[in-house]
């Protein structure tokens, strides 16, 4: 697997707490480096000059274009130099051994385009833990234990791609993430990837930790922003759009829109 670019997309830093979280994320990557035999390079992709590059030993990619999550990742994936990259949301963290664990699986699965971790999702209020991405390890979920294939995605869309290790060439070749798919961009990307017979493997290790209920987190914003009807329609749209490599900027219309 060798060197990996860790991309931290930062749209804005609202307050000191968010700045602290970013510093913590950068330090988290440094902690991962202790267990990983190749280089991990942290890239902050941001529209702003946050002034953290020299003092925190990371690279900054200034993005003058769109600054939604998908556009930031697409921009970074085109500009980093490593063959593999991973996405770290700055309020999340890697298990420090994640990259060394994924490396063990890489050598017997070199043809895999995306290695996903089992994500641990924590509700900070009560400490409740749940997993994401674990289902491919259930018998008969997909055709091969541990793999996400196109067929299993017909009935299940709860996968997270953050923390995953992407083959950069494959990512760029199929068009990256589609901003217009909004809440279902993860799902659409996996459909597109697997439809092209590219492999997605879930490393059976807890590699990534996400706090579900932090204020202003991406999940938090999404859960407030969308109605169930909208969620359903975005996922239905993803099931149509995966056939296209480019983002066609198709949108959805809901009952509420029609009334308006």
């Amino acid at each position, binding site marked *: 697997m060798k060197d990996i670019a860790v991309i931290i997309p930062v749209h804005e830093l609202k307050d000191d707490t968010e700045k602290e979280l970013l510093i913590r994320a950068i330090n988290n990557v440094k902690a991962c480096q202790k267990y990983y035999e190749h280089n991990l390079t942290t890239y902050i992709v941001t529209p702003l000059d946050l002034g953290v590059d020299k003092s925190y030993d990371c690279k900054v990619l200034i993005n003058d274009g769109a600054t939604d999550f998908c556009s930031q990742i697409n921009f970074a994936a085109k500009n980093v130099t490593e063959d593999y990259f991973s996405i770290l949301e700055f309020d999340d963290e890697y*298990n420090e051994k994640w990259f*060394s664990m994924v490396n063990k699986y890489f050598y017997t699965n070199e043809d895999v385009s995306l290695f996903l971790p*089992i994500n641990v999702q924590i509700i900070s209020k009560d400490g409740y833990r749940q997993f994401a991405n674990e289902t491919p*390890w259930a018998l008969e979920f997909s055709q091969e234990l541990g793999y996400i294939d196109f067929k299993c995605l017909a009935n299940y869309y709860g996968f997270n791609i953050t923390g995953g290790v992407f083959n950069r060439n494959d990512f760029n070749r199929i068009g990256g993430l589609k901003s217009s798919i909004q809440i279902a961009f993860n799902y659409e990307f996996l459909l597109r990837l697997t439809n092209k017979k590219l492999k997605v493997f879930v490393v059976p290790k807890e590699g990534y930790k996400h706090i579900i209920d932090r204020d202003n987190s991406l999940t938090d914003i999404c859960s407030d922003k969308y109605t169930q009807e909208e969620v359903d329609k975005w996922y239905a749209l993803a099931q149509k759009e995966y056939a296209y490599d480019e983002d066609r900027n198709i949108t959805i219309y809901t009952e509420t829109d029609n009334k308006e």
Partner: protein
Amino acid sequence: MSDIKDLKAIERIEESISNLKNNNFNIYFFVVDSRNVPNSSLAFIYELAKTLQDKKYNVTMLYQLQGEYTEAELYKKKKKGRQIDPSKLFIGVGDWLGQEYAKIPHMNISHAQWKVSPSDILFIPEAFSSLMFQTYQYKAPCRRVVLLQNFSYVTDFIPFGIEWKNYGIYDVVATTKQQETLIKSVFPYMRSKILSPVIPSIFRKPIEPKKLTVNLITSDQRIANRIVKTFYWKYPIYKFISFVDLRNRSREEYAEKLREGAITVWVDNDTPFGHSALEAIACDNILIGKVPEMVPEWMTNEDGTLNDCGVWTYDINMIPDLLANVIGAWMQDNIPSQLTDAMTDANTKYTTEKWEENVESVISSIIDEQIKSFESIKSSIQKNITNENEGVE
């Protein structure tokens, strides 16, 4: 007249000694038909037979099956499309242990005339007191050696008031020091040797990284259900975990599943050695085991305490909790090095190299003892002849 008889006896003894020295004798193993059900005791016997065969000894497996079809009968039945009675077929071990074991020569002693000579060696499994009796009754002239793997089988079939010396049995090869101690505590006159089992190289650390599956090795389905269902009820977060029941699989498939999986749960109260547990450890599985009634020697330290090559419990109800802890640690790559180091130690105890060395040593010592015993008989006959010739009374 007596001189001629004695001289002929000396001639026969010399011939037997020469046969033993020149590897011109047979080693027989009595076996039962496994009927394709894997069995670690039988696997040990076949492993021993195969190793001896590879060392160029003449080995034959003996079994008893009344009314077994001859090849001609079977051919006729198949040709005419007639029903075949499976109870009249010797199925053997080919499907689960492998063809190289099935190909060792077999003989049905219910049908064929079994001729045995004084230089031959017959290994009898500990449970077969009936065969010990038959070979004693018909004065089989070979050296008879009992293979003792599980002391509890000794008491299963032997009639009350009878012991091995009543069958003229004085030699035993035990698989552990514990078994040897147990047999000598009841039959102190036995000449004993220890031949520790081998964990064949098919059970090895895999090259591929592990899959998150839990292998189950339990003596019956009820125990497996109890563990799995309780685990899912108590730990719904782990409902995605897949269990693989390893009972009744071919050895190749069994080893493959062990190599693939990360964790093995092992419950076998009656095992005297715990082959399956060691096989799992050899395949780099984290082992969660219920301590058997007779604690195998590889599980303990010199002071008798349990060592760290597995996660042990005396209470089957604890297994789901231990399993959840182990899965959690494994998923975070936090398995303690104390455990993995002890697993490495356990793997060095029963290697193929040690096994081959031990087999050679045990068989050579049986042969040497037999030669010495013949020489001693020969010398006492010669002494008799000399005394008679000299008129000594």
